[in-house]
């Protein structure tokens, strides 16, 4: 999910992020993605969530206080005073922020680490960050120097040492390696289609041609033929694929691990995946395809850090892996858990205007930061 005109700005903060995880109807997904196209900063959160085993992660979280962003620690204490116009989550030790009119990266002490004249910047992953200069996207390393020259029209984050980009003349989409060299598509179609889920995961990337989905490996080889009418990217070594109107799961070699039987299916996380088989409501299955949390939710998102968002009576909350709600359903929006906390959003009507207030809860469902604006 990326586009050329993303920029980090307050309207695009992650409070409205939806994950494209449920498969539902493709058209719905595409609609959702269209809505998300302007949310570049948020995309990165998805990339980050795989890193929760990283003890060195900076555990700071953006908060909005009287219209300015600062950061709190996991206990809810302000660590970086609110002074920023934009603040995004830390990744690999740096956070992309805007202060005054300057887009830049700060460290955990709030000090500037990269402050150049870029017109747009994205968070770091794999030691590199996409930045835009003079209308072109490239990648800088953590010293702020170019690792890949700005020579693309669009550029996604690096993952598994690969990034998905659009060529300077708009003619093609391609994967590049860490030196910016094109990964030749070996036995895939010459021109890859644009694809929403373009990150490598488990050494595989989803590709599409003529509306059929398959998977390539990091050398550009097609390892799973383009034969699925719909598919999701790999997670937890499994990928959801649609076969004859039913979803199942395959492994990285394309072997069927869970036979196609679901009306809807989502990505695995913490050994569980959202699915629905016989009703209009969602539950969670294990890697054998058995429901361990029964179908009962109007909407759900995948597990991350042992918690999954669920939508009940028009409000969100989270469940644990046993299916217990950690709070009553009371949030209007939620972001996935990230380094132990999840950002929650409530809509407050003030003078007939809806104001979004952002707070954080811990894994027990307790407010660490009560919603503020």
């Amino acid at each position, binding site marked *: 999910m990326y586009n050329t005109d993303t920029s980090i700005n307050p309207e695009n903060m992650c409070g409205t992020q939806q994950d494209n995880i449920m498969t539902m109807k493709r058209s719905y997904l595409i609609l959702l993605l269209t809505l998300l196209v302007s949310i570049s900063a948020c995309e990165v959160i998805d990339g980050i969530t795989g890193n929760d085993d990283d003890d060195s992660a900076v555990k700071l979280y953006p908060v909005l206080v009287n219209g300015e962003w600062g950061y709190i620690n996991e206990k809810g204490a302000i660590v970086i005073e609110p002074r920023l116009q934009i603040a995004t989550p830390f990744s690999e030790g740096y956070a992309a922020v805007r202060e005054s009119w300057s887009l830049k990266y700060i460290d955990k002490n709030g000090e500037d680490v990269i402050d*150049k004249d870029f*017109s747009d910047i994205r968070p770091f992953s794999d030691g590199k960050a996409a930045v835009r200069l003079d209308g*072109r996207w490239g990648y800088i390393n953590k010293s702020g120097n170019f690792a890949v*020259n*700005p*020579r693309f029209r669009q550029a996604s984050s690096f993952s598994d040492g690969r990034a998905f980009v659009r060529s*300077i003349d708009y003619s093609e989409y391609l994967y590049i390696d860490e030196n910016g060299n094109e990964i030749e598509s070996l036995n895939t179609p010459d021109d890859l289609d644009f694809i929403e889920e373009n990150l490598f995961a488990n050494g595989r990337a989803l590709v599409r041609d003529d509306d059929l989905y398959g998977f390539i490996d990091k050398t550009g080889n097609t390892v799973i033929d383009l034969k699925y009418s719909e598919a999701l990217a790999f997670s937890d070594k499994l990928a959801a694929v649609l076969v004859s109107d039913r979803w199942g799961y395959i492994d990285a070699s394309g072997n069927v691990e869970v036979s196609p039987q679901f009306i809807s299916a989502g990505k695995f996380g913490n050994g569980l995946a959202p699915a629905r088989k016989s009703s209009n409501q969602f539950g969670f299955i294990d890697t054998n395809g058995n429901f361990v949390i029964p179908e009962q939710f109007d909407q759900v998102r995948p597990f991350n850090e042992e918690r999954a968002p669920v939508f009940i009576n028009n409000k969100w909350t989270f469940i644990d892996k046993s299916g217990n709600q950690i709070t009553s359903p009371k949030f209007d929006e939620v972001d996935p858990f990230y380094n132990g906390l999840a950002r929650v959003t409530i809509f407050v009507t003030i003078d007939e205007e809806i104001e979004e207030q952002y707070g954080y809860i811990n894994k027990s469902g307790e407010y660490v930061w009560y919603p503020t604006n």
Partner: protein
Amino acid sequence: MLKKLQLLALFISLISLFVFSGCTVVDGITGNNDDDEITTLHPVLLNGKWGFIDNKGAIVISPNYDEAREFSDGFAAVRNGTTWGYISEETSSLTIPTNFSVAGNFSNGLAPAQMPGGQYGFINTTGEFAISPQFDFAAAFSEELAAVRSDGLWGYVSTNGDISITPTFSDARSFSEDLAAVETFEGWVYVDKSGAEQINPSFQVTDAGEFSDGLAPIQTTNGWGYIDKSGNPVITPEFQEVGQFSQGLAYVRENDYIGFINKDGELSIPYQFAEVKAFSENMAAVRLSSSWFYIERDNGKMVVSNPFSGAQSFSNGIAQIQLGEDENVQYGYIDKSGEYVWYPTR
């Protein structure tokens, strides 16, 4: 919207930095101690007049001139009103008065020049005509010969004023690596310093450039490529545009974007630029879309810097850059790390 805001931010930072430009210069000096020995002068514009700084950013010649060019062969042409003279690098003063309506670059101790209403001749370093005004047009000397035009045809004059190669060509380039491209009725060919034809390719050449690193750009109906000194098209003519080889690389344009090839014709820096200048001192100025930056020769990577509205090649460790457009353009100098040696002024 963002762009406007950034311009505003740039403007604000310019104002604040302008106040501290003296300090910027001091910073610039500290980074440059690797080439302490070389001191060269470069033109700067201050309060509407041109003067010269050294390559550490210190003013050496006060801004008194309406226009000033870079030094070549120890002299820089400067203009007051409508006439040009020369500043000597050795004395840092105007040693050749502003008597000339045209003043070219010095080379081999001579510069093409023209008095108001006169013809082109060549002056020596005392400002006297060493080769009397007699030409319709004259280029600077290169390898002891200068292309000159008489009665609409081009030939070459030597430094003692003798016509070495009789004007018979409809166009002519400067000598380089002992050869010069000239246009004959049959197309472009290369002649040696006696005027004898040395390279006449078997295919039609519609334009031709100077040799450098043993290769010369030539244009055919299929596009631009390169020939060697035997006249073989060693890099197939197929490009929209090419440049001369410099430091082993030459720019080529294909499908509207420019990359750099090596002398084997292999692409060593991918197609990505809208406009470039040749490599010098391991750096090349490049334009992405509207702004200029610099890349390093060894890896082709861009040096992160402010976007410039114009950029010149590096010389003696610094390069002239521009900020702003048209009547608001400001000229400054940066070092190879992108730091200002002279903050842009106008």
